[in-house]
């Protein structure tokens, strides 16, 4: 029923070729435990499918229930501006219980980011507008919680264990 209203484009953070037969879009929240559970599953899918899968991650921070979700998402975008989106993305999901400002700065340093630029952009909320666009594109597309996945533009309502996702993706590729 629900379809992705904002197609995957250069605007997105993408892993894998955009020409891949299957595009998987995740709307997620770095502080959401369910997204944390889905994180290694997506990695496994990418490993198994290789170039046959294009994966895009869009932020959908539920800021009212997750205290650090917004700043964590801003940190990923700030890292993205320095071409380290995915490195920060992985770090955040691997440290879901440590997403306060102090830790975010530590991660930026560890990833070798320009720290003063990172701090400035975090303080100025430079990516808040972009994050709002992501959130609204999700809301328009029928995102009803996190994580929500879209396979080739169609909302995936099944369970997000490896077997279910893999078979849905194989079906979409067929």
């Amino acid at each position, binding site marked *: 029923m*629900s379809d992705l209203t904002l197609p995957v484009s250069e605007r997105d953070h993408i892993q894998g070729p955009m020409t891949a037969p299957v595009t998987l879009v995740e709307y997620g929240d770095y502080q959401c435990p369910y*997204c944390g559970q889905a994180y290694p599953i997506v990695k496994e899918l990418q490993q198994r499918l290789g170039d046959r899968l294009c994966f895009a991650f869009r932020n959908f921070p539920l800021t*009212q229930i997750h205290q650090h979700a917004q700043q964590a998402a801003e940190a990923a975008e700030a890292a993205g501006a320095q071409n380290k989106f995915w490195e920060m993305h992985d770090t955040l999901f691997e440290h879901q219980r440590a997403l306060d400002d102090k830790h975010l700065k530590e991660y930026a340093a560890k990833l070798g980011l320009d720290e003063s630029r990172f701090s400035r952009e975090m303080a100025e909320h430079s990516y808040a507008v972009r994050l709002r666009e992501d959130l609204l594109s999700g809301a328009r597309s029928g995102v*009803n*919680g996190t994580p929500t996945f879209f396979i080739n533009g169609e909302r995936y309502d099944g369970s997000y264990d490896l077997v279910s996702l893999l078979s849905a993706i194989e079906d979409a590729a067929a």
Partner: protein
Amino acid sequence: MSKVKKEQGILNPTSVLGPGTPAPDFKLQSTPDQFVSLSEFRGSPVILAFYPADWSPVCGDQMALYNELLPEFHRFNAALIGISVDGVWCHLAFTKDRKLRFPLLADFEPKGAAAHTYGVYRQQDGICERALFVIDAKGTIRWSYVSPVGVNPGADGILTALEALPSKQEVTK
């Protein structure tokens, strides 16, 4: 006799109210000392979200999602109201826990009475359906949707319905 008739009515609920129907008014408790009625909102659109129960799992929670999208609903000048059969103290605790910034009304006594007038009371379960209504500034239902109870319907339908409402100039007299 009248009791039997009443029970039959509840057992065979009228179908869900659809577009073009005047939205039935209600007056329900929002806090231990406050009541909210639908008619108070006349002049601006209202989103009614009937839902089965407070305290569903956090991240997939419909009310948490709407709370996040409240600024977007406000862009359409629309008010959001959540309604379930939970009591007012339960709503209060839930609101506080989830930091909700819109009222939750208790359709508590007589249980499900408001839901019943909208055709969205599940007699067999004693809870409201997961049902959405977008009501225009004049109090007419413009869109309604009933989701399977276990499925969070998201907000896309609401946003589309709000967009389709006549412009403010047309609804103000």
